[in-house]
């Protein structure tokens, strides 16, 4: 019956035989290919890639502020097919020789091995400061990637296993073995990219290279490579804005970036412009890498190169910064800080010598040492475009110390330094502005028609309108308020008369003050091209205490302080009644009581009594009798915005805190007629082959259309600040005999930060030239004692600015440098 299928059966059987014979032959040729090298070559095509150089950063005149320089690196590459024990021994010998040569000539090899031998004589894993869970995960991955036998987790056991695997000579101690193991570890962890060499030492000396090249044939796997490293020729200058680069430390980030072409050894910008312009500067991305495709035979040696493309450099970034000006600003700031500190110490010692003054001072200070000026920030911007021409945070640090990784000890020195050199004060510090805020009150008052240019207001001493309980009323800084009679806007700015601005602020009320602060960009980040910018804030009820938010999510620490005080009182009440409340109960009650400050009423006694009764079982009559309700009510008043808060906000005190970058933008915005702009550090970005990738344009967010006559009044008042005429402005002393008087304006701001007057913050803002303002300047001295103290740096900056104009006038030709400060 099956006969009818006989033919087809035979055909199928034959086909099966032929097919499988084909498979067998294919397999035979494949397995014996390595013996016959002519057959093996087609199968070993490898490709390596090399990153392009990181693009340079230039100032507006083309001076290089950051660029890559060539360095020699030593690399190690293990052939994947050489994997038996004697191969490993051979490689280890090579590595030992290479490490010896590198160290003899004063360089260091990589030190990444994740098992450390502690001082207490035990081994442990070291994956840096990470959570326990994350560390467990990393250890697990590491063990698996290192192909350590399963169930072997003890670091000591693993250490000896790896020593054994890589045939590290037994007599070698931990420290030396660690260097060898670091290199083996990196080689092993490259996994999929086993044909990528591991860099074992960077930036080695010429002697090292010479010595290695001679011995190359005795050092299997070792090679020399031309690499590059970042160099910052002006080291400390503009350090905060340039930033530095470093290794990719986060594995998740590495995974993300590796899709774009980055590798484990890639450097990325960590802070500053190096961070925010990473995508432009980097030569690590796939499109910029150069690729070499080559064939190797099964012994691992390169047979021929199939294709090669050169890497492309990252884009060139041109800044608006003028390096010469930046240097002047830096020096001016440094001199200013030194001078102020010396004056403060002198004054301090003088007061110590005087019995009466000493007692007064010690009362203000308590037990602590006074904080004197040791740092500062200064920014110069173009008023019309908000281009940043100089931006400087003092003290600074040498960027070159961070190239190739900074040692933990050195980093600790930086972080433990009282003056915090790594902290960028221009965009990250915020502080009470003091009188420099008065320009806002003036402009808002004029624009909202609450005060006219001609109206005069007399200083009447304490501003008592909102004082009901006999506490101290806010008043002007002058001892004799009769000095500030009949103040108009110009005079009020000149004299920085608090009383005038109390009145204007009172007419405006807090909502409109806050609105104008928003308009003038004081409550938001400016959007400058730097990471980690902080936003300032200006006082109002929501800023002081927002009852819709949790106590820990408030903008200021005031609600937390009140909460703590309330909680402490509640505990004391309990003690008085011989009751001990649970922690939860106390917190609950304190939270409910603090929340009463959000109800809008200032009389909260009955509600407080109810909370005390309901949660803490204190009868209403009892707490009323004891006056506890009033006591707590008084604490809560701290969180309720009142008229006094409004008027003190109007003069720049109260809870308001601003960043220097926002302050300089605020001044520029008033002077340019109300065009709020984004400050820009970057002028343009140009690709390595000269094409303009992007050009920064003036970015006007909106125009407040401030009337010219109001601007003129502000300018006039600011000019008067610096003049000695008519009793003298607040900064007249600093500018006495200054060559360029009357050609600029300024405003000082002194903001108390403690009871001790020498610790006050000092601000000074300025613009120049007077007739057609071109630049706006801010100098901020934390603990600078007074606003006029910050004017010294401004004076130096202005002198340089005007000297340059004069220079070019005298020479009768404009300075050729593009974008220079000469109009």
């Amino acid at each position: 019956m099956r006969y009818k299928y006989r033919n087809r059966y035979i055909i199928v059987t034959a086909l099966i035989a032929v097919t499988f014979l084909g498979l067998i032959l294919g397999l035979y040729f494949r397995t014996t290919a390595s013996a016959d090298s002519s057959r093996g070559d087609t199968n070993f095509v490898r490709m390596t890639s090399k990153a392009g150089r990181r693009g340079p950063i230039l100032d507006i005149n083309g001076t290089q502020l950051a660029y890559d320089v060539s360095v020699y690196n030593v690399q190690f590459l293990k052939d994947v097919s050489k994997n038996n024990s004697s191969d490993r021994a051979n490689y280890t010998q090579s590595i030992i020789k290479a490490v010896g040569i590198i160290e003899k000539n004063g360089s260091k090899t990589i030190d990444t091995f994740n098992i450390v031998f502690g001082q207490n004589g035990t081994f442990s894993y070291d994956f840096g400061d990470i959570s326990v869970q994350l560390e467990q995960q990393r250890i697990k991955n590491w063990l698996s990637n290192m192909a350590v036998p399963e169930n072997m987790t003890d670091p000591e056991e693993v250490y000896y296993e790896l020593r054994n695997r890589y045939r590290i000579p037994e007599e070698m101690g931990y420290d030396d073995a660690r260097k060898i193991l670091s290199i083996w570890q990196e080689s092993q962890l490259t996994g999929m990219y086993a044909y990528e060499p591991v860099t074992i030492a960077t930036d080695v000396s010429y002697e090292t290279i010479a010595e290695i090249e001679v011995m190359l044939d005795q050092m299997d796997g070792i090679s020399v490579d031309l690499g590059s490293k970042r160099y910052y020729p002006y080291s400390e200058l503009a350090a905060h804005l340039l930033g530095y680069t470093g290794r990719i430390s986060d594995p998740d980030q590495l995974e993300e970036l590796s899709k774009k072409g980055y590798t484990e050894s890639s450097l990325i910008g960590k802070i500053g412009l190096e961070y925010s312009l990473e995508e432009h500067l980097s030569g690590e991305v796939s499109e910029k890498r150069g690729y070499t495709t080559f064939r190797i035979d099964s012994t691992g040696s390169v047979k021929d190169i199939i294709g090669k493309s050169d890497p492309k450099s990252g884009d060139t970034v041109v800044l608006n910064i003028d390096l010469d000006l930046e240097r002047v600003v830096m020096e001016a700031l440094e001199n200013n800080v030194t001078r102020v500190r010396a004056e403060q110490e002198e004054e301090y010692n003088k007061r110590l010598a005087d019995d009466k003054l000493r007692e007064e001072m010690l009362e203000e200070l308590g037990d602590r040492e006074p904080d004197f000026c040791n740092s500062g920030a200064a920014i110069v911007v173009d008023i019309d475009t908000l281009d940043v021409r100089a931006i400087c945070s003092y003290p600074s640090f040498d960027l070159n110390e961070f190239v190739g990784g900074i040692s933990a000890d050195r980093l600790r020195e930086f972080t433990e330094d009282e003056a915090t050199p790594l902290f960028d004060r221009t965009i990250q510090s915020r502080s009470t502005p003091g009188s420099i805020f008065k320009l806002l009150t003036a402009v808002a008052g004029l624009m909202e028609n609450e005060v006219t240019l001609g109206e005069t207001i007399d200083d009447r001493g304490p501003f008592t309108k909102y004082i009901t309980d006999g506490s101290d009323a806010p008043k002007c800084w002058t001892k004799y308020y009769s000095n500030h009679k009949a103040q108009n806007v110009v005079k009020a700015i000149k004299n920085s008369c608090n009383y005038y601005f109390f009145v204007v602020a009172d007419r405006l009320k807090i909502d409109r003050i806050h609105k104008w602060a928003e308009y003038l960009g004081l409550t938001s980040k400016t959007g400058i091209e730097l990471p980690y910018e902080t936003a300032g804030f200006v006082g109002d009820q929501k800023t002081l205490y927002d009852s819709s938010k949790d106590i820990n999510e408030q903008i200021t620490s005031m609600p937390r302080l009140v909460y703590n005080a309330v909680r402490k009182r509640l505990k004391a009440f309990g003690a008085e009644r011989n009751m001990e409340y649970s922690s939860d109960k106390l917190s609950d009650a304190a939270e409910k009581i603090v929340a009463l400050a959000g109800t809008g009423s200032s009389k909260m006694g009955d509600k407080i009594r109810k909370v005390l009764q309901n949660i803490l079982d204190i009868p209403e009559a009892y707490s009323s009798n004891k006056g506890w309700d009033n006591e707590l009510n008084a604490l809560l008043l701290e969180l309720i915005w009142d008229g006094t808060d409004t008027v003190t906000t109007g003069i720049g005190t109260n809870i308001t805190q601003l960043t220097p970058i926002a302050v300089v933008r605020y001044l520029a915005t008033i002077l340019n007629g109300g065009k709020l702009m984004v400050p820009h550090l970057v002028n343009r970005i140009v690709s390595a082959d000269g094409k303009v990738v992007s050009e920064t344009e003036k970015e006007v967010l909106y125009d407040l259309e401030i009337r010219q006559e109001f601007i003129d009044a502000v300018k006039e008042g600011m000019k008067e600040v610096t003049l000695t005429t008519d009793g003298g402005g607040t900064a007249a002393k600093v500018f006495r005999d200054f060559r360029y008087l009357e050609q600029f304006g300024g405003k000082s701001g002194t903001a108390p930060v403690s009871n001790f007057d020498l610790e006050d913050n000092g601000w000074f803002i300025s613009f120049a030239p007077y007739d057609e303002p071109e630049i706006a300047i801010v100098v901020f001295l934390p603990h600078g004692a007074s606003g006029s103290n910050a004017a010294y740096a401004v004076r130096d900056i202005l002198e340089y600015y005007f000297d340059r104009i004069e220079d070019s006038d005298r020479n009768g030709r404009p300075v050729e440098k593009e974008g220079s400060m000469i109009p």
Partner: protein
Amino acid sequence: MRLKVLKRIDWLMIILAAVILVFGMISISSAVSPASSSEVSLFELAKLANTEYSSLQLVYFGAGAVIIAVLLFIDYSNIGEFSEIIYWVSVALLAAVALFGSEINGTAGWFKIAGRGFQPAEFCKIAIIIVIAKETAKVTQDKETGLDTVKEIWPVLWRFMIPFVLIMIQPDWGSAFVYFFITAGIMFMGRLGWKKILVFLLLIAVIVPLLWFFVMDDWQKARIEVFLYPELDPMGNGLQSMRARSVIEAGGLLGKGFFSPDLLTQQSNYLPEEHTDFIFASMVESCGFIGGLILILLYVFLILRIFRLAIRAKDDFGMYISCGVGFMLIFHIVENIGMNIGLLPITGVPLPLFSYGGSNMITTMAGLGLVMGVDLRRQSWDLL
């Protein structure tokens, strides 16, 4: 009576399957075990070896054995009665997975059941064998002529087309080709006329370029391009192929031995899918050409045995079923080994009984169960 049945079971098949399985288990264990740093004793080796996958493999085999036992009790003619139901249930499953399935390795053909992946395309291979065999048998049973007229071919053809298209949508080209190969094989055994065969071949020659330009996804094209020119993409798709070839070359004539510390596969991630799709390469590195040859010969014996049993089946339906199973295995084996040694493009087709994985183990065992069941019920022939 029971004894008689046991005696009639084709034990050779079971023995061949078991030998391949054990060979595979050792290979899998060797491929996934970490490097041992120096010479170790057998005892230490046993401690270090990773037996997680190979034990699971044994469990899958056990499950497959149960399925064989069950199939032996069912007369395949009864299964044939339900051919239509089996067919439409399979189509529904494939349609459902195309619509709601989840995606693994770029293919959407998976259902997640109790945390494990489940691939209908895999089990439906058995269904399509039964259905195509049934339809072909309807035409050829008790006739001297084979499939010839369009009217005779059409019922077979459309039953093949629907699941084929559904699987292409997923897209799972490996499985789709298995379906094609099974159908073509059964039709060939059904004595499809030579002229018709020629027409089909011409049709394919026209359709394939059309597919390339209008249907195939970029990643599928990439796989084929990279297969042809692995140096095009030494970082991505070509890597698997190149690595598999280096691993095989490293094996040489005699191999490095199982669990050898010199194995390339022990370098982390050196060869992706070292215990599943590329287990053949891993094994060859350990056992060399000789090991590969032994495995291929084992498969040849198994397949020839299947066709031997097929040809002595009592009726056409039984014969077609056995042939279908045979063709399914041929395709799997040739494609998998072919891609391992770099002769064929990479598709995710497993190596029956050898590579790690539950779905294919069950399918293969069920297939063998059907073949043995057909053979068990050839009384008419036996009594003659």
